[in-house]
């Protein structure tokens, strides 16, 4: 079948029929009006009803007043990437009313606050007015809370019109308000009143329904930043320094929330950790480098602009061989960019982060569950390799709620790497030197401040240094040291997570990607397969690449490298790594600030296959 035929077929089988447990809801509200509580309530209730569901907050960089959208996708088959279409739209914002009305798919449903004073004048959709102000007023909520509870009106109306279980809504509210009866009762009262009003006043004119399933049994719902923080806690994080930045802030706040619960010494009640809010990102990473150097499991978390500031310390840590973990919750760059939108645009930058010859180790979690796993694993890798480890997630993972497998307790013991304490030094017959490669893997042995052995101390410097850590400008010494660092980077390949491979029978094409684009790729592959085009998918989980990556490229004549950036940064790194395979690599890169959709992936591949 030619690609052109594929495209034609694609048109005829366009978007299958949506209806029961298969549609998207978009809620248009004003930022700061408390709608996030309502949206999460719907999301969680659907999840508790056993239906695969995802939620994405498409919000502005603003505290209050700008338009914001929240999109929920339910899909019985478990395809949960963002879609560009919405069957159901809830309009709560007068400023975007016309745009929201126009965005409803034909045959869809439009719920709108009746006080917006605008006409829902489309004949091809079902339009439902909601007396939002009236119900909020009748709720008895104090006037300062009335705007917040207004948003519960659409929760109740949707529950009634889509058959969302009110008990599950109660569970969601109970979770959100941490069991506090007063706000739970107030909000649930509004939900019930709105549902009753809808039952009494609205006639169902659209085909969309929720039916309970059991597809979420055993899963949890969490965001990537919380998962990362928890993972770090199970990894034994001892020191975290940070500076507020969207979308990474909630990662550090996750540490602050859960460390006191999980990491108070049971015997002494003392903290086995310290968290410092730094004055800027220069200091945040500086503190983490100091702590890592002195033997603590140290981390910092940031996003693009903070990362730029961290570059000089990243270079120092690479060259002085200090372990630390840096979480980069990517947002859209360059520059301040789009602070509240998602991207995968920091990969090339981080790989080379530092002047001179620098190569950094990067981990790329591809699910919220992996955010947890890499949260602890990153420390083992950093301390084993004595180098910074950068973990790149993004806003989509970091700030949205995802259903995911429960977090798994670490399956390997803590690896503190090559550290010599007093007893170890005492046993050493030959002298110890900080940068001597005894084992041939490029990784030398280190000692930590506090070590009382008279031979323990050494002097760390960002300038040229010999094996015994003395200042040196000797050309051979400089050369040898850089070559050893290169060797260490080779060693890193055996410690970083291998990629995840998913094959289809008779696949001819390869897809290579990383991070949060996996759901869109999974769905696109399903659609391509339905059209007779099989694909194998390699989800890369680390740089440097492991052997599987080269093997995969070699096995496929054309490999589409799918990523959310302009320049195809993973494609760049793969091309550098495998120049002999470069002609097999095709960049399918795209960025507009929004999470990837299956359509973008599908069309990128089909349009090229058509050539």
């Amino acid at each position: 079948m030619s690609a052109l035929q594929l495209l034609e077929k694609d048109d005829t089988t366009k978007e299958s029929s949506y209806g029961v447990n298969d549609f998207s809801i978009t809620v248009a509200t004003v930022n700061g009006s408390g709608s996030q509580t309502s949206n999460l309530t719907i999301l969680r209730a659907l999840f508790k009803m056993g239906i695969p569901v995802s939620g994405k907050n498409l919000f502005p960089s603003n505290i209050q007043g700008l338009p914001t959208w929240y999109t929920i996708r339910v899909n019985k088959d478990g395809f949960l990437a963002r879609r560009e279409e919405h069957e159901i739209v809830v309009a709560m914002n007068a400023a975007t009313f016309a745009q929201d009305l126009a965005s409803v798919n034909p045959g869809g449903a439009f719920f709108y606050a009746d006080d917006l004073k605008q006409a829902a004048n489309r004949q091809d959709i079902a339009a439902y007015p909601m007396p939002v102000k009236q119900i909020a007023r009748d709720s008895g909520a104090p006037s300062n809370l009335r705007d917040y509870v207004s948003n519960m009106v659409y929760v109740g109306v949707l529950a009634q019109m889509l058959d969302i279980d009110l008990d599950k809504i109660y569970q969601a509210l109970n979770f959100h308000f941490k069991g506090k009866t007063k706000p739970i009762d107030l909000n649930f009262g509004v939900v019930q009143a709105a549902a009753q009003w809808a039952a009494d006043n609205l006639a169902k004119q659209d085909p969309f329904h929720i039916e309970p399933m059991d597809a979420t049994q055993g899963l949890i719902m969490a965001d990537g930043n919380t998962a990362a923080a928890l993972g770090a806690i199970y990894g034994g994080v001892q020191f975290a320094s940070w500076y507020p930045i969207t979308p990474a802030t909630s990662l550090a706040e996750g540490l602050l929330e859960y460390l006191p619960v999980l990491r108070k010494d049971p015997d002494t009640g003392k903290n086995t950790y310290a968290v410092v809010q730094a004055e800027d990102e220069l200091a945040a990473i500086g503190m983490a480098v100091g702590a890592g150097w002195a033997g603590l499991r140290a981390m910092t978390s940031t996003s693009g602009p903070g990362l730029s500031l961290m570059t000089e310390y990243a270079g120092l840590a690479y060259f002085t061989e200090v372990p630390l973990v840096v979480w980069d919750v990517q947002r859209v760059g360059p520059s301040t960019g789009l602070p509240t939108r998602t991207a995968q645009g920091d990969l090339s930058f981080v790989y080379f982060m530092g002047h001179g010859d620098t190569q950094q180790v990067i981990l790329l979690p591809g699910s919220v569950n992996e955010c947890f796993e890499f949260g602890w694993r990153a420390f083992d890798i950093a301390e084993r390799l004595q180098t910074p480890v950068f973990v790149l997630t993004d806003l989509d993972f970091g700030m949205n709620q995802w259903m995911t497998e429960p977090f798994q307790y670490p399956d390997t013991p803590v690896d503190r790497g090559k550290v010599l304490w007093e007893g170890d030094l005492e046993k050493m017959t030959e002298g110890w030197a900080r940068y001597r490669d005894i084992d041939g893997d490029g990784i030398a042995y280190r000692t930590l401040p506090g070590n009382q052995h008279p031979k323990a101390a050494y002097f760390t410097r960002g300038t040229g240094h010999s094996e015994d850590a003395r200042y040196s400008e000797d050309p051979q010494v400089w050369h040898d040291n850089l070559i050893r660092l290169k060797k260490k980077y080779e060693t890193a390949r055996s410690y970083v997570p291998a990629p995840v491979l998913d094959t289809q029978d008779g696949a001819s094409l390869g897809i290579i990607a990383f991070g949060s684009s996996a759901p869109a790729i999974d769905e696109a592959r399903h659609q391509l397969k339905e059209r007779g085009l099989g694909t194998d998918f390699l989800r890369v989980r680390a740089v440097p690449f492991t052997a599987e990556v080269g093997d995969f490229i070699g096995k496929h004549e054309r490999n589409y490298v799918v990523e959310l950036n302009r320049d195809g940064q993973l494609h760049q790194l793969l091309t550098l790594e495998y120049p002999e395979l470069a002609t097999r690599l095709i960049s399918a890169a795209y960025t507009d600030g929004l999470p990837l959709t299956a359509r973008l992936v599908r069309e990128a591949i089909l349009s090229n296959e058509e050539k």
Partner: protein
Amino acid sequence: MTDQITTTGTRIPLNLAGMSKADYRGSPSTLCQGCGHNSIASQIIAACYELDIVPEELVKFSGIGCSSKSLAYFLNRSFGFNGLHGRMPSLATGALFADHNLKGFGVSGDGDTASIGMGQFKHVVRRNMRLVYIVENNGVYGLTKGQFSATAEQGLTLKSQGTNPYMPVDIAWEALVGHATFVARSFAGDPKQVKELIKAALSHNGVAVLDIISPCVTFNNQDTAMHSYAWGKDHEVALHELSYVPLAEEIMVEYEEGEDKEITLHDGSVVMLHKLERDYDPTDRAEAMRVLEEANRCECLITGLIYIDTEQPALVDIYNLPETPLNRLPESRIRPARETMQMVNDLMF
């Protein structure tokens, strides 16, 4: 003190830590002959020796510049980190969390602190990290060959640079405004005072800022320059005669009512301040500000302990850390128990 007798029969005096003075030495200095920084390094060695400090219990930090290089010229048996320009405070802050028994010892310069590192300087001061923070202040950039630094006085004329048009940064003043709990100014040409202040700083529970005028003999030592030896010698006005008395020693000097003041430091040691020309109370912050302002106006080099507050807790003290240093905690104390995993998953929705 006991003595060590070498195989050749030479007597080497040892301090209470069982160390000879050589145990506190560093690598040979590569700074210019006569550099104030070398003199300060000697006083650091002498102070640590006399304080019976175990070198492994002190950690050195510095940034970039001539002063920062001098870190390698003392205490070779201590861990040290010569880091980034202006970023020594953050490095030290993180490292000193690893073992709360360690004494932090930072050496910086006027470029490293008052220009590129002003932000980190102000914040480490504000946090009251337990850190001796010496600024070897000479008014010029040495390693890049003699440009004005931010502490150079307005009107200073240097051969290759012309005349400095800007007002200077006063490091002691910045420290004081930033709520430093120990602020001192000294002069490399007054080694006895430098040594006593270093000893007091090492006993202080918090950040101890020592702004030490340390002349650059190569680029800024002309007699009229405010960071020169000659100017310092002519214009130094000591606030008091200062002597440090360790905890173990009985105070032998005669205490004169109205003439002497005692300040007890965190570890029980005492700083004795003997009155010179005037009464000065270094626990009075407003008075400290006034004296710095006066020094500015009269163009004199006020030296001594300008301000001290022994009440503020140090940063590490407020973190409720365990007795065992964090960097020696075993896996069992840093990884939550397996049973907690279910509880955490239950906390998610």
